[in-house]
C-alpha cells in the first residue's frame, strides 16, 4: 500500500553549469539559465510504502512525516536562493531532477519502522514534474 503527502515551498534558482558555455547553458536550460535567477512555487509529493499497523491502521503517522518534511526540507528550502543557500546546490545545478534526488536523500534516513520511502515527486510548475524512486 502506498500513501502520499503533499507539501509546498517557494524558492529561487539559477540553472547554469560552470562547465558549459553561455550558448550551451542557454540551449540546455532556456529561460531558466538567466544568471539573475527566478523562482517557483514548488509542490512536493512524498509517497510512503508499507502495510498498515494492525493496531493503529497506519503505515506511518502522517504527523511524523509532516514534521520530517518541515525539519529536513521546508525549513531548508523555503524562501531561499537554492544555488547560494542550500547544499549541494553550491556544487550541482538545482534542476528539478537534482532537487527530487536531494529531497529523497534528506528524508529517507528518517522514514522508519514499517514504512519505506517509495517516491518523491517535485512539481516545479503545473507543466513540469520529476519523480525519483531511489536507487541508482
Amino acid at each position, binding site marked *: 500500500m502506498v500513501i502520499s503527502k503533499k507539501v509546498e515551498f517557494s524558492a529561487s534558482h539559477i*540553472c547554469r*553549469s560552470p*562547465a*558549459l558555455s553561455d550558448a550551451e547553458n542557454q*540551449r*540546455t*536550460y*532556456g529561460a531558466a539559465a538567466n544568471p539573475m535567477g527566478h523562482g517557483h512555487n514548488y509542490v512536493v509529493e512524498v509517497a510512503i510504502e508499507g502495510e498498515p499497523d494492525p493496531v493503529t491502521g497506519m503505515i506511518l503517522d502522517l504527523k511524523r512525516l509532516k514534521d520530517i518534511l518541515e525539519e529536513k526540507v521546508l525549513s531548508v528550502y523555503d524562501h531561499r536562493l537554492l544555488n547560494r543557500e542550500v547544499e549541494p546546490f553550491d556544487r*550541482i*545545478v*538545482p*534542476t*528539478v*531532477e*537534482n532537487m*527530487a*534526488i536531494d529531497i529523497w536523500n534528506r528524508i529517507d534516513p528518517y522514514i522508519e519502522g514499517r514504512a519505506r520511502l517509495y517516491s518523491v515527486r517535485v512539481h516545479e510548475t*503545473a*507543466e*513540469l*514534474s*520529476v*519523480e*525519483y*524512486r531511489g*536507487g*541508482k
Partner: protein
Amino acid sequence: MTVRLTRRYGFAASHRLHSRALSDEENRRTYGKCNNPHGHGHNYEIEITVRGEVNRVTGRLVELGRLDRIAEEQILRPLRYRNLNEEVPVFRELVPTTENLAAELDRRLRSAWPEVFPEGGPVLEKLRILETERNICEINHA
C-alpha cells in the same frame, strides 16, 4: 540516478464518436452525448513521462526544448483547433475515442523519437491523455 520527468501540454480539438460498424441506435447507446452528429470539443491535456539517467554536468534528464519540439511537431501543431474526424486522416476510419487518440499520439511520438533524440535519449515511459478532468486514458510502457 534514474528519474522520471513528466511534462504537460494542452490542445483544443473537436470530435464525434460514431462507428460505421454500429447502427444509429447502437451508436447512441455506446457513446451517449458524444454521438451528437454535429460533434463537440474538449480542452485535451497530455502528459508525457520520460525515464532515464540525470546527466552529471547539466543535472537534466532531457533537454526540455527537444521534448517540447517533439510534442509541438507531432501532436500540438497537427491537432490544435482541428476536427479530429475530418482533419486527421487516421480518424476517418478509426473512432477518435480517448483510447484511440492515446494510441495514435503514442505511435507518433515513438516514430519521431529517433530523429529528435539521435543519441537514444530518455525512454518514453508513459503517455497520459485527459479528455476532461474526469476522463483520463494512459499508455504505460514501464
